[in-house]
Each structure stands twice: as structure tokens, then as C-alpha cells.
């Protein structure tokens, strides 16, 4: 073939599909074209992170599940860490961390979450991959959609839906497995012995996954997800997002056979490949918009075309609006948003770190009786009643001994703490005790008093927790 023939052939190829891919207004199903490239590979790699979701529950630690979110017993096990409802405040810092992380990433690099990590994107990607393997490329799928229901269509659709349901079922089972023993779950599920909540959860996931990733797809990003709506206030002219280089591309025009391009024509050859590959069916050349999940697939498509027609790549590229318009861009460290976001991130990281490092396996809370505040006894002592709440976060019961700091109270007597108390594991054990101090030895109406609870586990490790309360006496 001569060079001219090659060019003609590839030109035909280039524009063959141009009319098929239209911008998404929600009335037709988007069938995006799949093609290889840098961002496509990156997307597969980031999709793989979700493997953790599937295999995580199967990790073991000793004789129990390594990560178990045990709702009925109100405790979360994360490897060696056990979290009880009392530790819930740390969750607010964790949530703050992720909320701000999302804001930081969006402010700097746009919707990285949407394009590469969001379960909606990832599952839709897998579902459409299955669809393509069974039904063929976008053109064939569009044809099949319009085709009458004959046996061939029924068979291919059945195959597709079964595989989708299988993925959806695995998703539901994996989700459920985080909350109960994963191995037992699989056994119980099939001998119909699992809890009704398991069946309800799994079926909700099957329906939800099938509907959201199989049927609704990018419409979820358009109409259901609030993130698409708030991204506009989170990104600005300095945010690096997939952008069409307007200055270079316009005025766009098709390459015509045997006819030189007009002088004012830009580099965009109007092949519509960027629209063709877009999983949400937007036209990036219209500028940044709510439908763009910033997955970078149009960069791959455009670069491939540019290479083919011997023009420099990067007509669509990761760049900020300022960059595209040739304005000077502030370095990252000089942007106030970076500093503010980093500061909030630090606060939440410090909060969680402090919380985790300060977490005791044994915790003591002391409640002073409200009525009566104190009682005069016949021997002239003042008696205060306390309820001690001993929280044992370990995996076994522990005998603990309660003591009180007597240094500030001459002649103090502690009643009710003579015996060791069994602190039941994973819960709070209440103990009522009385403290007696001779009235003449009291100096204030209310004095601080320090309680200590101490115990040893079976390995001989000592645990201890202190808590200050008050000792109340009559008015001086």
C-alpha cells in the first residue's frame, strides 16, 4: 500500500464511529469504547485495590477473624486492637480525616476518587468489561440493544446477567463477611442457617449492585451522587484536571482527503474519540463539567489519535485552567488552601494517634453518689458512696483490686473493695464502694480523691487505671 492509501484508510477508520458517539443527556445508554493506554492501565491498577474488600474478612489472627466489626457484641476488632463504643469519638476524627482528604485531593487534582477508586466507577468498569467480552464492542452492543429478542440475544443476555449477579453476590457476601465470621458465613449461607439479616443484606447488595453498576451506571454519577454537584465549589482555576487545550485545538476541523487544512484550523481533528471512550459520555472539549469523573481515558484516546496523525500529544492533558490559559501558576506550597487543608488533616491525624496511644485496656470511671452526697456515721466519720465502673477491653476476664490514694485523707477507710473484683471482658463491671474519713481530718467541703484499679492478665502483664473523683463532707 502506498502512503496515501494508508492515510486514507486510517482517515476512514478515524471518522467511522464519529457519528455514533453522542454527548450524554440521559436518554440513551452510554456504550463507551475501550482502548488501551496509560490511564487505562492506571485504572486497572487502582481497581485492584478493591481486592482488599474481598479478601480482608478471610484474614485470621489466632483463632478469630483479624478484622471483625462485631455489631451484636458492640466491639470492633482490628487486628490486635479492640474498639468498644467508648472509643467511638475517634471515629469522628477518622471521618474528618477522610472528608478533608477528599477535599484536599479534589482541590489539587480533581475527582481522583471518582475516576479511579469509587466503587460505582470500579464496579461499572468491571460490569461493562464483562458486557464487552460477551456482547462485543459499542457498535455491536447498540445493535444488540435494538435487535428483537431471539434465542441468540436471550442466551448472551442470560450469560451477562448471571455473571453480573455472581459479581453482585460476591460483593454482598464480602460486605457481610466483615461483620461476622467469614468462613462460617459461607457455610451457614448455603445450609440456610445464616441469620435473616445476612440474607436481607446480601439480597439488597445483589439488587443494588446489579441495578447501580449494571443498569444505572454513569447516571448514578450524574443524578444520584452529591459529590458531582459539590465538586464545582471544590475545584478552582489552579486545580489540575483533565483539560482540553482550547488554544491549541480550536478551531477544530476534520482532516479532509486531498485538501489542505485552512490556516486558522487548530489541532483538534474532531474525531470524537474523546467522547467515544468517555464512560459518562461527556465531551471534555466543552470544558470541565459535572459529568466528568476525571478518569483520564480521553487523554489516552486523544494521544493515540495525535500519534496517528503525527501531531504532538497532550491536546487533552492534565492541566489547570490557569495552565491552559498560560497564566502563572502558584507553587503548591504557596497556596493558602493547601495549608488550611493540611492543618485540618494534621488535627485529625493527631486526634486519632492520641486516641489510639492513650487507649487503655483497663479503664476506670467513678460516679459519686448524688443523694446523699455524704453521710455522718456514728463514729464521727463522713461516708461517701461511689459506683466504680471498670471497663475491661481485653479478651479475658481479669481480677482487679480497687485502691484509693490515702495521702490526703488521714484515717481513710475503704469499704467494699476488700475482695478482688472480676472485671468481665468486653463490658463494664459496676462496683459500689464506700469511703470513710474522720470528720475532723477533712479540710475542705470537697476534696479530690484518686481511685486506682489494678490487675494482672494470665501472662502476668500488669494493667492499671486511675480516675479522680471528689470526697464531699459537711460545710466547714
Amino acid at each position, binding site marked *: 500500500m502506498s502512503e496515501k492509501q494508508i492515510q486514507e484508510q486510517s482517515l476512514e477508520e478515524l471518522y467511522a464511529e464519529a457519528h455514533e458517539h453522542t454527548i450524554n443527556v440521559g436518554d440513551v445508554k452510554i456504550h463507551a469504547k475501550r482502548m488501551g493506554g496509560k490511564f487505562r492501565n492506571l485504572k486497572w491498577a487502582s481497581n485492584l485495590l478493591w481486592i482488599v474488600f474481598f479478601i480482608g474478612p478471610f484474614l485470621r489472627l489466632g483463632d478469630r477473624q483479624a478484622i471483625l466489626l462485631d455489631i451484636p457484641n458492640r466491639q470492633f476488632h482490628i487486628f490486635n486492637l479492640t474498639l468498644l463504643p467508648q472509643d467511638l469519638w475517634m471515629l469522628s476524627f477518622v471521618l474528618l480525616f477522610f472528608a478533608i482528604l477528599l477535599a484536599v485531593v479534589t482541590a489539587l487534582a480533581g475527582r481522583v476518587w471518582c475516576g479511579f477508586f469509587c466503587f460505582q466507577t470500579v464496579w461499572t468498569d468491571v460490569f461493562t468489561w464483562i458486557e464487552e467480552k460477551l456482547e462485543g464492542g459499542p457498535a455491536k452492543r447498540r445493535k444488540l440493544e435494538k435487535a428483537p429478542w431471539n434465542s441468540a440475544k436471550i442466551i448472551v443476555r442470560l450469560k451477562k446477567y448471571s455473571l453480573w449477579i455472581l459479581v453482585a453476590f460476591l460483593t454482598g457476601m464480602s460486605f457481610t463477611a466483615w461483620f461476622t465470621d467469614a468462613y462460617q458465613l459461607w457455610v451457614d449461607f448455603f445450609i440456610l442457617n445464616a441469620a435473616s439479616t445476612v440474607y436481607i443484606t446480601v439480597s439488597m447488595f445483589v439488587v443494588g449492585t446489579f441495578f447501580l453498576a449494571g443498569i444505572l451506571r454513569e447516571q448514578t454519577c450524574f443524578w444520584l451522587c452529591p459529590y458531582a454537584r459539590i465538586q464545582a465549589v471544590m475545584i478552582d482555576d489552579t486545580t489540575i484536571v483533565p483539560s482540553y487545550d482550547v488554544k491549541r485545538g480550536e478551531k477544530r476541523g476534520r482532516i479532509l482527503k486531498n485538501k489542505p487544512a485552512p490556516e486558522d484550523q487548530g489541532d483538534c481533528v474532531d474525531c470524537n474519540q474523546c467522547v467515544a471512550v468517555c464512560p459518562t459520555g461527556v465531551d471534555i472539549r466543552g470544558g470541565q463539567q459535572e459529568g466528568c469523573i476525571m478518569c483520564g481515558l480521553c487523554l489516552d484516546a486523544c494521544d493515540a489519535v495525535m500519534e496517528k496523525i503525527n501531531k504532538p500529544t497532550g491536546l487533552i492533558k492534565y492541566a489547570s485552567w490557569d495552565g491552559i490559559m498560560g497564566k502563572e501558576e502558584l507553587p503548591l506550597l504557596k497556596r493558602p488552601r493547601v495549608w488550611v487543608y493540611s492543618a485540618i488533616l494534621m488535627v485529625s491525624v493527631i486526634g486519632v494517634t492520641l486516641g489510639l496511644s492513650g487507649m487503655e485496656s483497663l479503664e476506670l470511671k467513678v460516679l459519686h453518689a*448524688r443523694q*446523699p452526697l455524704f*453521710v*455522718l456515721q*456514728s463514729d*464521727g466519720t463522713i*461516708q461517701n458512696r461511689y459506683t466504680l465502673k471498670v471497663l475491661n477491653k481485653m479478651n479475658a476476664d481479669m481480677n482487679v483490686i480497687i485502691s484509693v490514694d490515702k495521702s490526703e485523707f488521714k484515717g481513710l477507710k475503704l*469499704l467494699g473493695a476488700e475482695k478482688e473484683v472480676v472485671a468481665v471482658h468486653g463490658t463494664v463491671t459496676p462496683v459500689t464502694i464506700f469511703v470513710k474519713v474522720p470528720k475532723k481530718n477533712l479540710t475542705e467541703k470537697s476534696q479530690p480523691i484518686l481511685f486506682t484499679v489494678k490487675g494482672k492478665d494470665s501472662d502476668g502483664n500488669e494493667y492499671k487505671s486511675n480516675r479522680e473523683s471528689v470526697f464531699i463532707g459537711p460545710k466547714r
Partner: protein
Amino acid sequence: MSENNPFPDEGNTGHIWDDNLRELSNPPPNWWMMAWYASIAFVIGYGLIYPMIPLANTFTKGLTGWTAISEFNEAVAEVEAMRKPNEDKIAAKTAKEILADDELSAYVEASGKVLFGDNCAACHATGGAGNDGYPVLADDDWLYGGTIEQIQATIANGRKGMMTAHAATLSEAEIDTLASYVVGLSEGKADEKGKALFQSKACFACHGMDAKGMAALGSANLTDGIWRFTEADQLASAKRTIAHGVNAAGDAETRNAEMPAFKDKLSEADIKKMAVYVYKFGGGK
């Protein structure tokens, strides 16, 4: 109103004002009619299922036989069934055995609050903190003894304090001497003159030779810091008690001290519970 209907074909009611303002008879909207029929169906269904129509002496019962009070009674029965194992044990055991059983006494401590609040707290205050003229239950000074059996007997049978008025038999000076003697006793002071008078006037007959009181008589321990009747001026308070006595007939200024009997008001199990509950305030012996 127009005599001749200028709009004969549109099915108006014939009520026409101002030439063309007229009343039509369109049917209500479909959704409205559907809601209307659904409401009727609901009422019929409701009447079939639930009690609805009051009759002379009775009412229509409905197919399910449901009533609000039966639902309430079922809920109460459910709670009682939950409590039954513990309640049965309480009925079978003595108060002392309940006290020795950690689980049962914890149950009593948790569930006794309502009973105490209904029957006892009006005088003795929540937590047994006591009120003016009503003894503190959280201390270890008991007129009638602080063992679990004695507390149970006090609740069941009630108590009535008894002390003669001495205004007629003792001179004012003697009352002053005795009052300062007993107030001094509680502060650990010795007073030979008072002691002699205490013995010669036979106070010891009730309060004991050591003035520490006798549980059998319900006489007060005069040597400790706790007073049955408290006033800002403890000396004046002691004088009044000596002069006018406790529950002394015919003395207008006498002290009133009476604990009602609860054996007819509370079940035996409840009395045991209250004994344990009071004992656990911290003063039981």
C-alpha cells in the same frame, strides 16, 4: 342568573352569573375518588379487625379481639416473666440470704428504686438521705438495730418512738444539766455532774448505763454524733426532747416519731427487697 343557557352543551348546572361565570358539574379528580374509596375500604377493614362501634353495654370486638389494655397487660406480663426467676428466688429466700447472693442483691439494688421511691422516699428521701425529723437510712446509727432482720421487722411492723415528757418531773436547771451532758457526750466531753444526774434520774433505764441506747426499746444512742432530732442549736433541741418527750400523750410540744407498718401495704417479698435495698445504703450491720 341567566334564564337561557348560552352554553347548553358543556353540561353546566344552569347557574350562570355575569353572562359567562358558570358552575360546572365535573366529577372529582380520579385520585380523589380513589382515595375516597380507599378510605371507605379502610374503615370497613378497621371495623372488621379492631373494636370499633360502642353498643349499649358492650362494643364490637373485631376479629382479632385486640384491645389496648390487653396489649398493655401482655407487655407487663412479658416484663414480669423476665423478672420471675429473680422474684421466685427472692420469695424463697430470707432477706439475709438475698443479701449474701451477689446477683440477687444487685437485682434488688437495681429494681428496688421504684418501690423505695413510691413508699419510702417521701420521708427518708432518695438514697435514704433523710429529712428534718425523719431518720437518715444511709448511716450506721439505728434506733431499732441495723441488722437485716431488724430492718425488715421495722419496715413490716412499723415503729413508734416513746419517751416520757420530763417537764413536770425535772426542774429547768436539771434539764439544762442533762441536755449539756448528752450533747457533751457526743463531742467526747466528760461531765461528772451531768453523769450523776443521768443516773439518779434513771435515764439509764432506757438509754443504758453507757448511754448508748437499746435497740429493743428503740432508745437513742446519746454518745455518737448523730441525732434523731436535729436543730441548728443542738443543745436547745436536746432540751426540748427531754422536756417534752417523744410521742408523749397530752404534750403539745412533744416530738413526733412514727414509722407506719408496711406489712399490709407491701408483699412480703417487697418488704424483703426494701430491707436489702435500705441495708445497702451503706449503714447496714
